[in-house]
């Protein structure tokens, strides 16, 4: 294995600034959407007193989950000692931070009182997983920043393994915390399941790696840096395995629910009668988000084509957004089960008359805020790789593979 050299992202200036301008414009539009929503109040969104978390939460949770997953590539290198992954670690750490910041900004800007963030940072109720998450998120950013320093500063290299282990343990705690936001909600039929936490962890593996692969392929391709087939085969197989693991957790989650009669109505809602949520589940989460990408990634010919791998990774991202949408919005749309063995036949306030789902349609400002968070994460990533040495000069097989014959 040759010595790895790192170099700033060198695409020509017009393309670089053009890319930044496009992303900055999306961020700015998201910013205006926030100003509009905060000035008018949440009535301009599709959110109601029944669907209290809307599309911004879908984007925010996706980005936060993906952030912890993006760090996996670095962890495989420094915690599990896979030499081939070591040159990939810096970008992995950078994306872990940028994706988390993008997600958190969306989350904070959707608060009813974003200006009271200082209250959230100073007044805690430690029984709330949200309060813990504030520590987990801020701590994650700090630890990964130190981790990056130990990787990039030669004198600090010796600490890289130790900090890497800490970052890995922390990221597991972080995603457990994010999954537990739902796992701890005893009130709702679709949540309140311990499986939520590990399912979120495995989702983070796949979504983070998918975004990582997309950024890696784009930055290397646009800069004419070599990206070896052996490395790509490893990464795309890993993505396939992670997606298969989500598939497993999805099956187990629904099968265990189907076993208990009390959950039959909820399962019927998600799997059969839920309209947009049923479609999003089968078409988005299952077919486009898991089956098609697995088909591509494990296909002997397609799986080796860069274009096909990109499409598979994009589908994993899209399927991930669908999955979070079904969990967050679908879970709220299903009416609360307040009166077992009874049917609500009239209600003064949307209690699910005759089992009817609560309605929600995403509004434009909500979607723009979510996309703004995505754009911000990418913007910060592209600025990072341009000004600092995050990207290896080459990831050709003779550079990354210690057993390369040629």
């Amino acid at each position, binding site marked *: 294995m040759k010595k790895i050299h790192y170099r700033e992202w060198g695409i020509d200036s017009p393309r670089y600034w053009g890319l930044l301008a496009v992303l900055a414009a999306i961020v700015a539009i998201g910013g205006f959407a926030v100003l509009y929503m*905060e000035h*008018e*109040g*949440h*009535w301009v969104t*599709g*959110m*109601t*007193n*029944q669907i*209290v*978390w809307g599309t911004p939460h879908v984007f925010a949770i996706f980005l936060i989950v993906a952030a912890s997953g993006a760090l996996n590539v670095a962890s495989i290198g420094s915690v599990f000692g896979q030499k081939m992954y070591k040159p990939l670690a810096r970008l992995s750490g950078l994306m872990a931070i940028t994706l988390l910041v993008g997600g958190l900004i969306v989350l904070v800007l959707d*608060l*009813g*009182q*974003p200006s*009271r*963030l200082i*209250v*959230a940072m100073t*007044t*805690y*109720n430690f*029984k*709330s*997983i*949200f*309060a813990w998450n*504030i520590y987990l998120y801020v701590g994650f950013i700090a630890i990964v920043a130190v981790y990056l320093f130990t990787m990039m500063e030669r004198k600090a290299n010796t600490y890289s393994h130790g900090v890497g282990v800490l970052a890995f343990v922390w990221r597991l705690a972080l995603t457990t915390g994010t999954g537990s*936001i739902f796992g*701890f*909600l*005893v*009130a*709702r039929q679709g949540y309140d399941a311990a499986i939520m936490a590990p399912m979120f962890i495995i989702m983070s593996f796949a979504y983070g790696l998918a975004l990582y692969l997309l950024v890696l392929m784009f930055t290397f391709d646009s800069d004419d840096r070599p990206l070896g087939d052996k490395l790509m085969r490893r990464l795309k197989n890993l993505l396939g395995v992670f997606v298969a693991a989500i598939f497993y957790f999805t099956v187990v989650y629904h099968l265990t629910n189907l076993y208990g009669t009390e959950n039959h109505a909820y399962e019927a809602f998600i799997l059969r009668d839920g309209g947009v949520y049923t479609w999003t589940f089968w078409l988005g989460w299952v077919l486009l988000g898991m089956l098609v990408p697995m088909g591509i990634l494990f296909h002997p010919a397609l799986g080796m084509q860069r274009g096909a791998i990109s499409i598979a990774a994009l589908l994993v991202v899209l399927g991930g957004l669908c999955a979070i949408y079904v969990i967050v919005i679908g879970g*709220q749309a299903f009416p*609360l089960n*307040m*009166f077992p*063995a*009874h*049917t*609500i*036949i*009239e*209600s*003064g*306030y*949307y*209690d699910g008359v005759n089992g009817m789902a*609560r*309605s929600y349609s995403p509004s434009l400002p909500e979607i723009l805020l979510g996309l703004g968070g995505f754009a911000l994460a990418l913007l910060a990533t592209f600025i990072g790789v341009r000004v600092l040495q995050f990207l290896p000069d080459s990831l050709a097989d003779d550079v990354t593979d210690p057993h390369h014959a040629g």
Partner: protein
Amino acid sequence: MSQPTEQPTDKRRREFLAGAGGVAAATVVAPGVFLQAVANAAPRDTAVTDDVRYGMLIDTTKCADGCSDCVSACDKENGLDLLVKPEGASDELWEMQRPRWIRTVKLRNNLTGRVTSLPMMCQHCENPPCVDVCPTGASFRRADGIVMVDRHTCIGCRYCMMACPYNARSFIHENVESKSTVAPRGKGCVESCNLCVQRRDNGGTTTACQDACEQGAIVFGDLKDPNSAVSQAMAQYPTVEIRADLRLNTGVRYTDV
């Protein structure tokens, strides 16, 4: 370089500054001291204790089908009727976004077909999930059993609304032009039934919904006092908690559900 020379201190100047400072300090502090004295003079100067636990019994056999007097009374008492639909908002969406502290629900037993009407509101749990999940502690339970929101520390994250098993909480989606002095509110915070807490703190013995219910279906009072009307009524009839499976020990109980 010149040597620094020692100047004699101007005593009058110093005295003037000290005097001016004293006047300024008194100007700033005095009103606070005075107002504090006024506040302390009010009858609400004793802390809420857990010697009482406020609660309610809803006798669903008395709750009249089609009646919503309790809802109107709550709206009036707590200023919910002062909120106006924002210009340009759709009627349908606004109905789902406007706050509601109490609502009427009609149920049919799946097996027997028996129909029951009842009001639903915050159930004032002893172990409220909304309080558990609130990151800042804004959602809290008073010693006397009332579950409510501190509007100064609520950041509007709506996690309590996700956690409430009774759909009892509302988020203020719109700008608030006019509000009641007893129930101040602002855009971006969560709120819910607080058992007319303003009446509790001013010595009142009833809630607005109870006063409005001509059928006498709502009995409010101290659950810890065996002689209170609510305790007496609870001792007389079999009562249930809604979602008793969650073991939240609600302060609001129902008969005949």
